[in-house]
């Protein structure tokens, strides 16, 4: 990109370096044949990928992470979409307050939420850690479920739903044959965002971990603290590849910038 803004362009280049270069180093290190994080890497091998995929704490926590992310994303949508409908279509007193409440998990620090749930639900109320995690992750995704599907709902001309009613469709029939199909891009965006948010979450998953149920990021954090070998680089590269795949899927369906940047270009 040629530019007539030399200062802005220099700062921008610096920004991209800080954002992306460390990730490149992780990728390079993952393929080392040596057994440390030394740079430059000592030779080329895939041994650390094999090690990562056969290291049980990683594989079992990956499964835990996926289960948690899928269930809580489904829950957040199942509970959040009706709220979005009530806010945008229903006659609800105090709409702004209801919407504010459902967006509020965004403004409270996640670590504070994690501590609250740990203290009150696990220690205080005796829920097990999976149930508590499910509560926490679902609540954390409410803002996406309510706001993203709400934004998508706001784009649907209410007259379209009126038209269906006028043509003889009941309220339920109208929702399933008109509203829901038109809402699909919004639902898909919300689901992807929710899944990613849950999968990557550290603060909640960290505070609410138990010996039997820990998520992958928490296990990785622990591992990095105690060991200094490239196995984490290998698992990082695998996560990176999966994330790229998610980004490509998003781009092919709704549009990458629309899903993750909230940007309509």
């Amino acid at each position, binding site marked *: 990109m040629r530019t007539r803004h030399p200062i802005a362009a220099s700062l921008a280049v610096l920004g991209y370096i800080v954002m992306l270069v460390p990730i490149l180093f992780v990728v390079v290190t993952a393929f080392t044949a040596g057994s440390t994080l030394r740079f430059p890497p000592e030779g080329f091998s895939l041994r650390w990928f094999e090690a990562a995929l056969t290291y049980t704490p990683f594989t079992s926590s990956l499964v835990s992470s996926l289960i948690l992310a899928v269930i809580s994303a489904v829950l957040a949508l199942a509970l959040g979409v009706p709220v979005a409908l009530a806010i945008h279509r229903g006659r609800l007193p105090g709409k702004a307050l209801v919407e504010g409440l459902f967006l509020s998990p965004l403004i409270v620090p996640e670590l504070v939420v994690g501590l609250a749930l740990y203290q009150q639900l696990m220690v205080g109320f005796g829920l097990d850690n999976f149930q508590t995690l499910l509560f926490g992750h679902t609540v954390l995704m409410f803002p996406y479920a309510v706001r993203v599907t709400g934004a998508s709902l706001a784009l649907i001309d209410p007259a*379209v739903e009126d*038209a269906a*009613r*006028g*043509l*003889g469709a*009941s309220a339920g029939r109208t929702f399933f044959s008109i509203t829901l199909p*038109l809402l699909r891009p919004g639902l898909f965006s919300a689901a992807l965002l929710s899944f990613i948010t849950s999968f990557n979450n550290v603060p909640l998953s960290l505070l609410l971990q138990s010996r039997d149920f820990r998520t992958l990021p928490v296990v990785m954090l622990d591992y990095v603290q105690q060991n200094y070998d490239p196995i984490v680089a290998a698992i990082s590269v695998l996560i990176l590849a999966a994330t790229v795949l998610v980004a490509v899927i998003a781009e092919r369906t709704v549009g990458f910038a629309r899903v993750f940047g909230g940007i309509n270009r």
Partner: protein
Amino acid sequence: MTHAAQFRGVSQVFGDFTAVDDIDLTIPDGKLTTLLGPSGCGKTTSLRMLAGYLAPTHGTISIAGVDSTRTPPEKRDLGMVFQSYALFPHMSVAENVGFGLKMRRVPAAERARRVTESLELVGLAHLSASKPKKLSGGQQQRVALARAIAIRPKLLLLDEPLSNLDARLRIQMRAEIRRIQAETGLAVVLVTHDQDEALEMSDEMVLMKDGRIQQQGAPQEVFPAPANRFVAEFLGYENFLTDPGGELTTIRPEHLWLTVGEQAPSASGGSVVSGVVLDLAYRGVDLLVTVAATDASGARVELLADLRAESAPDLTQGTHVWVHVPATHVVPLTGD
């Protein structure tokens, strides 16, 4: 006389705003009725109550003689065309038109036949497989019409159907809607703020203001005899002056004519008012002249005269003129 629909004492109150204020209205069968008025007059609210999207605060609405005040929209059998057309974007043209029939569990073969029939009526049978997004505004409008007609409704409701079309297409669609109304024999209710549209299309027109009906009747009855100043202004009567008897009267700009000269001309068959030209606007065929004058009550009035440009006297700003007000065209006004 049979009624397609009837409003009795109907009001619609939103908080402290009364959108429709105790109206009685009869929609005749087999005719095109327009609800005409400026925005906020209650015409669209009335239509939405008729369609069942709004429950009246007070009063009853009957459709084809049956009280339908509490009937939900899907049970009313009315065909509605929305201002935004409200086509289902995820369905093809044929699926849109067939939607109402599907809801009525019409068998597929019969449905296909009636979809084609409706699309032929609006001249779009060849586009049945297209998605609405691919169509022009005028075509979307026709699909919306076909969709509403396909269910063989008791009434066809049109909410400002032409307001999103360009001027040329709008004129064309007026005739088209009239043709469809004639071919189907449906009772049609059309909401509009355009008096030309209402005059050209209506069998019956209903003028509304502030939630109340101001005047109702055939265009041929209403236009020459507006009931009050609001109706007169809305129908393009520009000139309001008090006659020697102290009554408010109105006259259309094209019925005034102007002469120049020192001596006051004789006022045979009307009256003559003295005035000064304020402004001239040349419109090709027409010449619009604004004249400052004083009426019989002594009030200063501005009169607008619409003259044939080729036969108009030579005028400039400040020219002293005589304004002739022929008695045959003077309309007395009552009420406000």
